[in-house]
């Protein structure tokens, strides 16, 4: 069975090219990836990411439960704030990367990937303690990402603009849309200023329609998973199953900055050891110096020795060349080093560049 989001009919009406992604029938593009990518960078893009999973974690022990589950210092956030983190294994490998929203000391909201929905839920339940309830709200919740420099103007036409204007990056608040409660967070997965909107499925088509209509004059375009991927990759935001996985430690993924908690959390021993002593592999960001498009899985070489593989690669619409991230042996490559990527039996030149390729534009 293939799952459909509450906006499926809207995508079909717009003539989107649909593909299966993590068990869902999702729009990969409406026009072209390039077109939707550029619209998001310069104006605004509207993404249906309702396939993602949402868990509400409630109860008197919610706070201590979250502290046990993530390596990131929970005191970084306060009610109305959110942060990026990960669920780690004892090995330091990653069950999933997540966003944690603090509603209050006794209530958190956790957003995770569609492909890991069941795995995450089992992992959380496996470690559940007394005084915590996990409510899986995924199937009732629609998630729309409004991203790009014109986002604030567009959303202000639909919700109270002064409250919206007070939202800081990674802050979130509640708004009313047609009488329904909508959670709005100022964050995203594109490298652009923007918002992530959460609303009940039944209001999703109306919200989608209002945003498309309100955004038309500002140049908003519906954007698919294709553009979402090129946008996040230019911004060097990790994708689970690519830069992150059960057998890649969080340190290897280049997300050492997420390891900051002083609490006793799962994976602490391994992650702290690797943070201090280094890990076997590391993620590097690169750009192609020859023509060619690096893609996931392509092998990476230095001095004719295989040192790793491309975890994500694409042609960058912004930089007009091949870009990507690769998982390579630690110390095999430093910033500025050149190496090669094997593309259909040919060695194509590439160079290690600074992360991120595209700086946050907000």
């Amino acid at each position, binding site marked *: 069975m293939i799952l459909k989001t509450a906006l499926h009919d809207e995508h079909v009406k717009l003539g989107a090219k649909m593909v299966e992604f993590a068990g869902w029938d999702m729009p*990969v*593009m409406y*026009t*072209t*990836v*390039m*077109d939707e*990518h550029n619209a998001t960078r310069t104006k605004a893009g509207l993404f249906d990411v309702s396939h993602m999973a949402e868990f509400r974690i409630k109860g008197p022990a919610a706070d201590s439960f979250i502290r046990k589950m993530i390596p990131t210092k929970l005191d970084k956030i306060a009610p109305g704030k959110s942060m990026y983190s990960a669920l780690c294994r004892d090995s330091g490998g990653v069950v999933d990367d997540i966003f944690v929203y603090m509603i209050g000391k006794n209530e958190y909201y956790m957003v995770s990937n569609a492909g890991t929905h069941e795995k995450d839920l089992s992992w959380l339940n496996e470690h559940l303690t007394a005084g915590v309830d996990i409510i899986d709200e995924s199937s009732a919740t629609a998630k729309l990402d409004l991203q790009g420099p014109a986002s604030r103007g567009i959303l202000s036409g639909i919700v109270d603009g002064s409250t919206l204007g007070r939202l800081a990056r990674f802050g979130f608040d509640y708004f009313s849309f047609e009488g329904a409660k909508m959670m709005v967070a100022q964050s995203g997965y594109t490298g652009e200023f923007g918002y992530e909107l959460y609303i009940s499925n039944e209001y999703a088509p109306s919200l989608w329609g209002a945003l498309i209509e309100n955004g038309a004059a500002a140049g908003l375009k519906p954007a698919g998973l*294709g553009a979402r991927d*090129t946008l996040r990759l230019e911004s060097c935001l990790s994708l689970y199953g690519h830069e992150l996985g059960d057998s890649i430690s969080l340190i290897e993924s280049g997300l050492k900055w997420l390891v900051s908690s002083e609490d006793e959390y799962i994976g602490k021993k391994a992650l702290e050891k690797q943070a201090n002593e280094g890990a076997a592999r590391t993620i590097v960001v690169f750009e192609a110096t020859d*023509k*060619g*498009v690096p*893609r996931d899985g392509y092998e990476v070489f230095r001095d004719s020795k295989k040192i790793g593989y491309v975890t994500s690669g*694409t*042609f960058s*619409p912004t930089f007009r060349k091949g870009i990507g991230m690769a998982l390579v042996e630690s110390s095999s490559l430093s910033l500025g080093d050149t190496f090669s990527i094997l593309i*259909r039996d040919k060695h194509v030149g590439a160079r290690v560049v600074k992360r991120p390729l595209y700086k946050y534009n907000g």
Partner: protein
Amino acid sequence: MSSIPENLKYTKDHEWIRIDEGGVGTCGITDHAQELLTDIVFVELPETNREVRKGEQVAVVESVKAVSDVYSPVSGRIIEVNAALEDSPEILNSDPYGEGWIFRIEIKAGGEIDELMDHEKYEDHVESGD
């Protein structure tokens, strides 16, 4: 509906061939193919003088999301490639039957041409969604 010129022959994999003078054919990908691929960002061309068989992979066309092989519609020897595509692959989107030609081939067996689809058959093939 994509454009399907009457004077060309077509393959099921959406290549076209135009028969020029002296047993030479010019080949490319169809308008339908470029529409499916969308923004073409990279083209890998064959070596000239390479002998190819009908249906053999000769070039690669890549869009942001997809890699697509291009097969030779007939057997023969590659005599010329369109080097302009290396710097401007987007020509394949804007003019697939003209400036966006990919290679020219010296046709080995003229009989193979008759096995290809004419514009009407190709139109049916596109409409059938293959």
